[in-house]
Structure formats: C-alpha cells, structure tokens
C-alpha cells in the first residue's frame, strides 16, 4: 500500500473524457494499486422548486472520482486522475490541472460530439494533451485522421488508438502524451 520509502517526487496526469468513455476502465487497467476514489463536494447553481421568489441557489453535491498510481522509479511516483469533462465540474479542474504534466483525452469515435466540452476545458486550463481514441468491442477501428479532422485538432496534437481494456495499449497512449510533452521542449 505504501509508497517506496525513497519516493520523494510526485507528478500527475489527468485522464479526461465524456461520461462512459472508458476512464474508469483505463485507470483500473494501468494502476499498480486497486483504484481508489476521492469524494469531493462541488457547488452547483439550482433553482429551488418551492422557492416562490425563484432565486437561484447554490446546492452542494458530492462527486466521487477514480484515481490510480504508478511508481516510475525509486524516487518518482505518477498519479493518474480520472476527471469528468462536464462544465459543471470546472471547479475541480482548477485544482486538478494545477501542476499536472498534461492530459490524456479519451474519446469514443461514435460520440465525438461529446468530446467538445472536454476539449474546451482542457484548453481553457492550458493543459497539453494527447487524444486516445477508444476502441469499443464490436466496432471497427476508426481512422485516426478522421477523428483529428472531426475534432478540429492542431496538427501537432497526437491522436492514438487506445483500447482502454488493454494494458499495453493504455500505457502506449500515456507514453505518447509524455513524448509529446518532451517534443514541446525542443
């Protein structure tokens, strides 16, 4: 359960995507620990039904988010946080994106339109990202260039196939993201 005693550095990468796109499966597949969840409160604007004045109120709800861990060397640990891509979670994005190396955006090629709010958040919070196109069982692999076009991505943004149920494929998508981060330093 504990980190290796010499681990002194921690970094994080966000795994983001629309609801049901495979974030939980991805983290479960790649994490060295049984994935855990954090529970945290978010405030949302709402209109009280019984409130005659109909003034918008803020209500608090709790959201549970998955994360996983990867010890990368004697002294370095990487945490991977599954991050929901809806606008109403933007409060959490503020903190999650701070200090993050980057984001892996998982998309479902059959539901690409659902990725726009996610990409909007990623760009708004200034995260460098790569796209992992999930391959769902029973579907044919989707041409990656079509995904790039449909999402209107910058030419240098990596787009890779990523079967979230396959550890090698999932890891390769992370590696692609880190290589992209490196290339931006050159």
């Amino acid at each position: 359960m504990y980190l290796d005693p010499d681990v002194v550095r921690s970094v994080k990468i966000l795994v983001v995507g629309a609801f049901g796109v495979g974030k939980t499966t991805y983290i479960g597949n790649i994490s060295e620990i049984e994935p855990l969840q954090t529970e945290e409160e978010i405030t949302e604007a709402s209109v009280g039904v019984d409130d005659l004045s109909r003034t918008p109120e803020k209500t608090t709800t709790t959201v549970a988010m998955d994360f996983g861990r990867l010890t990368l060397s004697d002294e370095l640990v990487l945490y991977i946080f599954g991050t929901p891509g809806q606008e109403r979670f933007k409060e959490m994005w503020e903190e999650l994106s701070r200090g993050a190396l980057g984001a892996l955006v998982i998309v479902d090629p059959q539901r690409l339109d659902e990725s726009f709010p996610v990409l909007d958040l990623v760009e708004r919070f200034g995260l460098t990202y790569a796209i992992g196109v999930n391959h769902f069982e029973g579907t044919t692999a989707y041409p990656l260039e079509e995904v790039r076009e449909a999402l209107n991505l910058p030419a240098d943004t990596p787009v890779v196939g990523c079967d979230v149920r396959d550890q090698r494929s999932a890891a390769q998508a992370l590696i692609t993201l880190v290589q992209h981060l490196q290339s931006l330093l050159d």
Partner: protein
Amino acid sequence: MPDEHDQDEEPELELTSALVPFFVITNGRALPSDQQYERTALVTALKGTSAAARTLSPEAQAIVDLVAHGFLSVAEVAGHTHLPLGIVRILLAQLEESGLVLVRKPVPRAEPTDRELLGDVLAGLKSKFGA
C-alpha cells in the same frame, strides 16, 4: 447498440449528499486552500507523544494510523479513509500544525527546465510496461 457503453460504469458520477456533520469532525475549522494539500502531496505520520496525539478526533486518528508506516498521497488518504477530500485537507492542517504528520509537496508544474523530469517519467513508463 447502447450496450456497448455499459462496460464502463463510472462511479465517479454518482451524486450523493453528505450524511456526516463535518463541522463536528473538524471543530469548525475552515478549509485550507487546495494548494496547501494538493492531492498528490505525500503524507506520513511523525512519531508524536504530544498531548495533541491523545485528543484527536477518530477521523484524525484514522489518518495518523493510515500513514503510520510510510508515505501515501493526500488522494490515497481520502480514498482509504472514505472521508471527503475537503475534510482530509482540514484534518491534515490540524495534524501538521500539531507536528503529527509530515507533508511533502508535489513537484510543481513541469517547466521547460524539467526535461529531466519528463525523461524520468518516460523511462519509468517504458520500463514498467515493456514498451
């Protein structure tokens, strides 16, 4: 086929309401800023025999016990204790103030000078997954 998407249950989106009166657990303390106990900050217990150690709330004691023998991230502390992240941060602030835990801040955002850090991350991923 709508079934295709059911493979991925996302418990992260379960919305529930808080059942615990948190102000009791935290003695009414305000939230520390989230920068103070970032979820990747690493926490371990310090050997303390101070009076503070004997008057901890059960929740604070649970945190001390959890990290008694090594480092865990703030996120893992929240995950294992099932306490909301905000509450964990408040309790960690109390515990750090009392000298009962040590908190190690995460590496700040990778700057252009962090070529070495990215290199370490990449090497680690490659060796871990044989890629």
